[in-house]
């Protein structure tokens, strides 16, 4: 085990100090320190569990014991070398975020009243914690920033992967809030009127919603949701100052970044409504206008009628709010373009998308995280209808070609959808595109033993599945969400065991906020309140979403796909020094 030579180390320090405008002496001193496991709080030390009933069926949260890593042998197919921990070395340490669902809860471009029609089916249209999504995301970024050093090996975080559903309702403002929060740019999570919350949770007659000033008279009040006076006003005060992710982050599309509520085509009526001054109170009005527009999109006459209706407020069931042009609904290409409005640190500009993507309209990409690790970002979202996805043939063939050319690298695949939700075959009338489902996609990945992990999201739960063929295979790692309980994300580390096997460690991360709801005004206080509300959103079966212990803190073993000693210690040290310098520069 030999790292950089003295000359190599000094050259590395000199180059990194110049690149990040750091003092060479200070950087050299920092990089000379050996890697030591990070001590930041994670679920290795503490978990969050359901506490006692506070009122009705409403329960608080309490802390539980930490969870150690559980080895999983499914892909390896045999017991592991008990001495592997002595010789392991880190190949790459990553953050993984998914399903952040940043929400502008005051926007008319939402369809909350649909829960009255069927709360279970439309559960994602309204959550009691909707006004605090920016706060939760910022608290999650803080947790990941705290975990910028691996709790296992001390390796610095080299990158963070974002697997979609970032902007909940396709709004420009939600898109900007999500990017800025990950970048560490302050966000004031308010729209419309300054200093006054105008969303449905402030309307006394929206009894079907959780109204924190007085929840009595509806399902949430009956359940025991507490009074939280002033919560909505605290939620729109700004700015929320996230520390920003500690590493370059890469993004892919989710179904909410593609379709309305991740499911429906976006009508001209909805686009008008989103920037208008009428917000729906009654689901009957909303269904007629929004879903009516969805079906009538092809009719210019209907569009004109609907536009006039929107303009002059002919439909009942709406309330007047302050319009805000920033709530504009973005187009598909604009999602990519927004990722270019970003600082270079943490970067990268484009966050995986490149100028070639903007020019061609292709929504998938590849990037080398290190000289030894390549990542492929796919767009598995259906462009027509439905929340679930598939892999379009063009991407399927592209991925096979790229993997053929990457056999000397460890490969990661990112997508929003997981193997249980890749079955959506919806096509526009007359379209002949072939959409590949989960079975074909898994088979494709299994053709390449150097594909070691597939990171995804979509189902808002922690889940880890093994896929193997013969003596090789890969791990599918699904992370939970920032909207539904448990509001957890994860860090992932690839490790060489130096015995012909490698391990992928997954560590579940709670956002850095208090366990109990409070009247505090900081973004972490509001994030803690959000988590407690989410834990009581009964329609989501919140505690199921934690997954089992085999889906949380794990060591996922697999055979090394090639001789990992070809990756030299010196190369890894240089890579880790670069990541440490970047973190110091932030």
């Amino acid at each position: 085990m030999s790292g950089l030579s003295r000359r190599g180390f000094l050259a590395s320090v000199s180059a990194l100090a110049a690149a990040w405008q750091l003092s060479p002496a200070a950087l050299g001193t920092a990089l000379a320190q050996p890697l030591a496991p990070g001590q930041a709080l994670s679920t290795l030390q503490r978990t969050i569990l359901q506490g006692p009933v506070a009122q009705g069926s409403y329960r608080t949260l309490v802390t539980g014991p930490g969870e150690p890593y559980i080895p999983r042998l499914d892909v390896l197919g045999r017991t592991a070398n008990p001495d592997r921990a002595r010789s392991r070395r880190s190949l790459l340490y990553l953050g993984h975020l998914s399903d952040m669902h940043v929400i502008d809860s005051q926007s008319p471009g939402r369809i909350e009243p649909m829960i009255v029609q069927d709360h279970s089916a439309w559960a994602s249209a309204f959550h009691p914690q909707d006004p605090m999504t920016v706060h939760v995301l910022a608290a999650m970024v803080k947790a990941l920033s705290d975990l910028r050093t691996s709790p296992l090996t001390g390796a610095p975080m080299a990158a963070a992967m974002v697997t979609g559903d970032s902007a909940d309702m396709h709004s420009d403002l939600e898109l900007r809030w999500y990017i800025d929060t990950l970048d560490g740019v302050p966000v004031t999570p308010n729209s419309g009127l300054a200093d006054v919350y105008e969303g449905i949770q402030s309307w006394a007659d929206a009894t079907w919603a959780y109204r924190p000033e007085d929840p009595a008279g509806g399902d949430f009040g009956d359940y025991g949701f507490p009074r939280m006076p002033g919560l909505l006003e605290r939620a729109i005060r700004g700015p929320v100052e996230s520390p920003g992710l500690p590493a370059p982050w890469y993004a892919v599309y989710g179904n909410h970044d593609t379709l309305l509520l991740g499911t429906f085509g976006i009508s001209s009526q909805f686009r008008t409504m989103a920037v208008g001054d009428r917000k729906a109170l009654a689901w009957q009005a909303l269904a007629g206008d929004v879903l009516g527009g969805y079906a009538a999109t092809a009719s210019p006459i209907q569009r004109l009628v609907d536009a006039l209706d929107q303009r002059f407020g002919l439909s009942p069931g709406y309330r007047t709010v302050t319009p805000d042009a920033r709530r504009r609904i973005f187009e598909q290409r604009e999602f990519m373009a927004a990722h270019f409005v970003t600082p270079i640190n943490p970067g990268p500009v484009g966050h995986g998308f490149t100028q070639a993507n903007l020019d061609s309209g292709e929504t998938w990409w590849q990037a080398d995280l290190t000289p030894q690790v390549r990542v492929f970002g796919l767009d598995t979202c259906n462009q027509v209808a439905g929340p679930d996805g598939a892999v379009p043939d063009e991407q399927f063939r592209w991925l096979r070609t790229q993997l053929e050319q990457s056999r000397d690298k460890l490969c990661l695949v990112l997508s929003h959808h997981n193997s249980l939700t890749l079955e959506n075959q919806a096509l526009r009338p007359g379209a002949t595109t072939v959409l590949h489902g989960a079975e074909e996609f898994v088979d494709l990945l299994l053709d390449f033993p150097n594909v070691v992990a597939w990171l995804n999201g979509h189902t808002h739960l922690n889940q880890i599945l093994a896929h193997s063929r013969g003596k090789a295979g890969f791990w599918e790692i699904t992370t939970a969400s920032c909207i539904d309980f448990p509001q957890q994300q994860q860090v992932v580390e690839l490790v060489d065991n130096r015995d012909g096997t490698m391990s992928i460690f997954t560590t579940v991360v709670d956002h850095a906020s208090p366990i109990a709801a409070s009247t505090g005004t900081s973004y972490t206080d509001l994030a803690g309140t959000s988590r407690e509300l989410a834990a009581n959103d009964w329609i989501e079966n919140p505690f199921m979403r934690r997954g089992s212990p085999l889906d949380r803190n794990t060591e996922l073993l697999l055979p090394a796909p090639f001789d990992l000693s070809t990756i030299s210690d010196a190369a890894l040290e240089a890579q880790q020094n670069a990541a440490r310098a970047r973190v110091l520069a932030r």
Partner: protein
Amino acid sequence: MLVAGLMLLAGCSQAAAIAPVSGGREALVRFAGNDVLVAQQVAVLEAPVCAQAGEVVTCSGSTVDGQEIKVAAPAGDPATMTVTVGSRTLYDGPVQAVVDKAGRP
């Protein structure tokens, strides 16, 4: 009104498609089965792999010492399940009760 009525129907049929994000019976059974195995310190080689047919969920895996793991949840609401390792029955009861217990101190 006619348009609104038609759209309500459209909304109903499409609303059903939102369901996967609201959770799934297969995931619930799989998690609960794993909770039982971990709580009872079963040395798992292959964690149960599940399949759903209608409301019926069945999962199978194996232990390090070569025994078969089976998780079976028949149709019915609320869901119940049986978890067996070889000839031993580790759990026979409501699925949700396992998830609830795992989520509390």
